[in-house]
């Protein structure tokens, strides 16, 4: 049982290897096809490849990072015009012009993305759409630069070592090689740390931020990467066609590109290639199969295909193929060993902490000696007229567990949100390990060593348990976008080590069997355990637990309590918000009681249980106990 997580890792690696083999095969087939196809089919192949390059970027941006772009055609267009203008006006070599176009678009995308990516959901979709339309209008209207609606020609072809790429076949060879390179880069990005961070942002940006992932910069870098892919396609296109005008870069092209990504399958690199190929070929087949079928029929079918696909097959062709493959393999496996596997025993929390974790905990400095780790002073948090926290003072020394209790609406979660950076305080200071953290962003706070769990469990549902933990393990360091693009063996070695650590953590919280289960498929109790493993992966010095026991059954609560004690023994300071008083009283070193945003009592559990102000706050001054027990059933264990 313990080794099952490890035994899955080689399988995963084998999966990658199998895909790489398929990719190599596809590459060779494409090369061979380039040798034998006629001019007409070669032209279609070239268009497939040109689109595939853009769509691969879109898959990374939309499918992996969850950021939609309806303006990708604009980046293709700017790439195309830049390369065209540089070569015709300034006699620059097409190769250099192509690189310059990619650089320019990269910078432009960073400038555009900086404000745009702050938008979320459909606002981002429409912001990018507006950007695309503005660029398109610019191409039409800026006559002196672009030649207006009719564009200009005389753009030179690529040439190298005396070979000029001026026939469809020569271009197809060039494009097959470049597309293969782009696919390789996209696949590298889609398999490493950046991919996990991107999908974490897609699944829940706030949670990713609280794990220390710099989400704003990550989104921006993926946006720039997709734009550079688009510019590459645009630059290649003009030196193939030798002519440029605005028409190919209109809004409909952006839609077409996104349609290709959706039809192919947004969550797989292969989906990008498949989508570009299927839609381009389909369009051409339609043109030749239905005589007289011009643009309009194509338009209708295109739209209808998009709608039908989205309704009935939202995971795209790649998703469908993957599902079919899994179905077939499970059917075959089912027949070969029909005995089936016995259901595993109820997973229990491991007795021992992984050594590396103990080591790294001991290694981490625990603040200035004698000073408390966390010091909250005069903290006030106001939402309009509502005062959620009023002049709150709290200190948490390392190695201690401070429980924060109070009736609903007392400001407990607000306090956690301020400490973890999700809310800025109205006034007052929050000092952690010698740093002022009040009002700063969650990611840098997390990197200082503050980890948290959420009242409404926040796992990344469409990522496996192992990946959930990995996101936290590698939040701070690891290969960036550029390093991920080449994926050196060194990167792979580091990754394997981290995967080991992640499985250790999963075993520690009793999830060893679920390393490759999607987090969203776990029951609530196990999702809470996963959250805890993820928080530990941050190697926190302060751990904020927001109602960790809610929704757990008594035996799970006992396990959780044991786990929390183990963590405290590691030297982690813990703040615990919890309504189960028995749980709190058994665990807490100190208890702070909040009511209406004010601290009304603080002290060891025994004192708090007898404190008249606390009893009054919980039970009311005038009501008898029976009534309160009905309205507030989570209060067993408190005095009275």
């Amino acid at each position, binding site marked *: 049982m313990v080794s099952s997580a490890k035994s899955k890792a080689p399988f995963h690696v084998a999966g990658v290897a199998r895909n790489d083999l398929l990719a190599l095969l596809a590459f060779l087939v494409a090369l061979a096809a380039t040798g034998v196809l006629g001019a007409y089919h070669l032209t279609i192949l070239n268009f497939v490849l040109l689109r595939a390059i853009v769509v691969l970027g879109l898959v990374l941006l939309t499918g992996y990072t969850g950021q939609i772009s309806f303006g990708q055609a604009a980046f293709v267009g700017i790439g195309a015009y830049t390369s065209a203008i540089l070569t015709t006006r300034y006699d620059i070599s097409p190769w250099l012009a192509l690189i310059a176009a990619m650089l320019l678009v990269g910078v432009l995308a960073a400038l555009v993305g900086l404000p745009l990516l702050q938008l979320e959901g459909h606002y981002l979709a429409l912001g990018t759409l507006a950007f695309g339309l503005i660029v398109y209008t610019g191409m039409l209207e800026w006559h002196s630069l672009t030649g207006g609606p009719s564009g200009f020609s005389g753009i030179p072809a690529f040439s190298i070592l005396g070979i000029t790429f001026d026939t469809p076949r020569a271009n197809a060879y060039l494009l097959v090689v470049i597309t293969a390179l782009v696919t390789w880069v996209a696949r590298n990005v889609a398999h490493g740390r950046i991919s996990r961070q991107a999908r974490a942002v897609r699944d829940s940006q706030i949670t990713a931020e609280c794990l220390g992932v710099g989400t704003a910069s990550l989104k921006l870098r993926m946006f720039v990467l997709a734009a550079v892919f688009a510019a590459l396609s645009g630059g290649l296109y003009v030196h193939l066609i030798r002519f440029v005008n605005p028409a190919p870069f209109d809004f409909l092209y952006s839609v077409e590109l996104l349609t290709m990504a959706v039809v192919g399958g947004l969550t797989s690199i292969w989906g990008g290639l498949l989508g570009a190929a299927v839609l381009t070929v389909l369009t051409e087949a339609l043109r030749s199969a239905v005589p007289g079928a011009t*643009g309009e029929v194509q338009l209708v079918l295109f739209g209808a295909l998009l709608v039908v696909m989205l309704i009935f097959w939202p995971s795209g062709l790649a998703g469908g193929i993957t599902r079919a493959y899994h179905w077939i393999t499970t059917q075959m496996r089912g027949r070969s060993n029909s005995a089936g596997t016995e259901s595993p025993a109820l997973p229990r929390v491991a007795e021992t902490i992984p050594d590396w974790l103990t080591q790294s905990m001991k290694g981490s400095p625990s603040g200035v000696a004698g000073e408390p780790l966390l010091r909250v002073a005069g903290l006030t948090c106001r939402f309009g007229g509502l005062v959620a926290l009023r002049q709150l003072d709290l200190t948490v020394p390392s190695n201690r567990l401070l429980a924060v209790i109070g009736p609903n609406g007392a400001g407990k979660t607000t306090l956690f949100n301020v400490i973890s950076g999700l809310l800025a305080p109205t006034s007052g200071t929050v000092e952690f390990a010698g*740093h002022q953290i009040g*009002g700063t962003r969650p990611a840098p706070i997390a990197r200082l060593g503050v980890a948290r769990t959420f009242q409404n469990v926040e796992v990344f549902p469409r990522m496996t348990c192992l990946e959930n933990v990995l996101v936290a393990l590698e939040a701070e360091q690891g290969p960036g976008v550029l390093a991920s693009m080449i994926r050196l063996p060194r990167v792979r070695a580091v990754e394997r080590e981290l995967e080991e650590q992640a499985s250790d953590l999963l075993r520690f919280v009793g999830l060893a069997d679920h390393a490759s289960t999607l987090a969203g498929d776990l029951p609530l109790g196990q999702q809470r355990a996963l959250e805890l493993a993820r928080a530990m992966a941050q190697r926190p010095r302060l751990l904020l637990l927001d109602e960790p026991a809610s929704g757990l059954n008594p035996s799970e609560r006992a396990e959780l309590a044991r786990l929390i004690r183990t963590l405290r023994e590691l030297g982690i300071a813990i703040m615990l918000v919890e309504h189960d008083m028995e749980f709190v009283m058994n665990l807490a070193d100190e208890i702070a009681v909040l009511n209406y945003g004010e601290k009304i009592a603080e002290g060891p559990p025994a004192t708090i249980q007898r404190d008249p102000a606390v009893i009054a706050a919980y039970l009311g001054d005038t009501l008898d106990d029976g009534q309160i027990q009905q309205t507030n059933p989570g209060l067993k264990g408190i005095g009275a």
Partner: protein
Amino acid sequence: MNLSLELPQWIISGITIGGIYALVALGFVTIYSVTRVINIAQGEFVMLGAMLTATLHNRMPLALAILVAVIAVTAIGAGVQRVALYPARRASMVTLIMITIGVDIVLRGIALIIWGTAPYSVRPFTPGPPIIVGPAVITRQALWVIASVIVIVVVTYLFFQRTMAGRALRASAANPVAARLVGIRPERMALLAWAGSAALAALGGAVVAPITFATYSMGLDLGLKGFVAAVAGGLTNPAAAVIGGLLLGVLESVGAGLHSGLQDVIAFAVLLVVLIVRQVGILGLWGRFGPRPRPA
């Protein structure tokens, strides 16, 4: 160019086209409030209203032609909701936008097959010379457009405030769960919102057709402009959407008067600025990239 002479004229024509943007925006807001779907195809309902009116008004009285066109487009709107949106009602927001784009493409393609690329003209509702007010010339049809927009906005307002169906729609928009608990069926409300929005758009298309001509490709542009107006008004506020539409029309018309290439850029530049300022705010940007923890 003499600004004081031209400006009133630009403002008048801006209000006229802005009125149509306002109707599209009103449709956007209705659908978005009730179903949280951004309907990119909204402009195609305007196009269908204009096209059907243009085809029918040579064969029957104008009023009847408009009535038939509006009813037909209303049915199309309801049909789109049933066939394309309802089956995917649990899909993500991005999927839903993509579906409406697909619908937009299909409707435009069908229009292209039926009517071709040629523009169709519709004769003005009341023939006669334009009315001259000071330096500005107002065509009679522009008055029709402005009057229709006013009537439609008032009727829509009364519908939302005074009728049971209108109140149910508002309840559904404000709190779908609570609305459901008191017996309002969300799927029926979604259907009603789509049908009503399509009707508004079709009526807009019918009254504007004599001014702009009717072409198969007029929809996307109108739809996007209407959307800009709706966003400027906050996407859920009908009154603000109407004002946004009128303002956008005027802004565009003045911009186009100053430089003909500016017209389209203005709308989308406005959209970008509005989106960024509304959703993020300058301070928001600072917050994302600004302060970091510092040693105390």
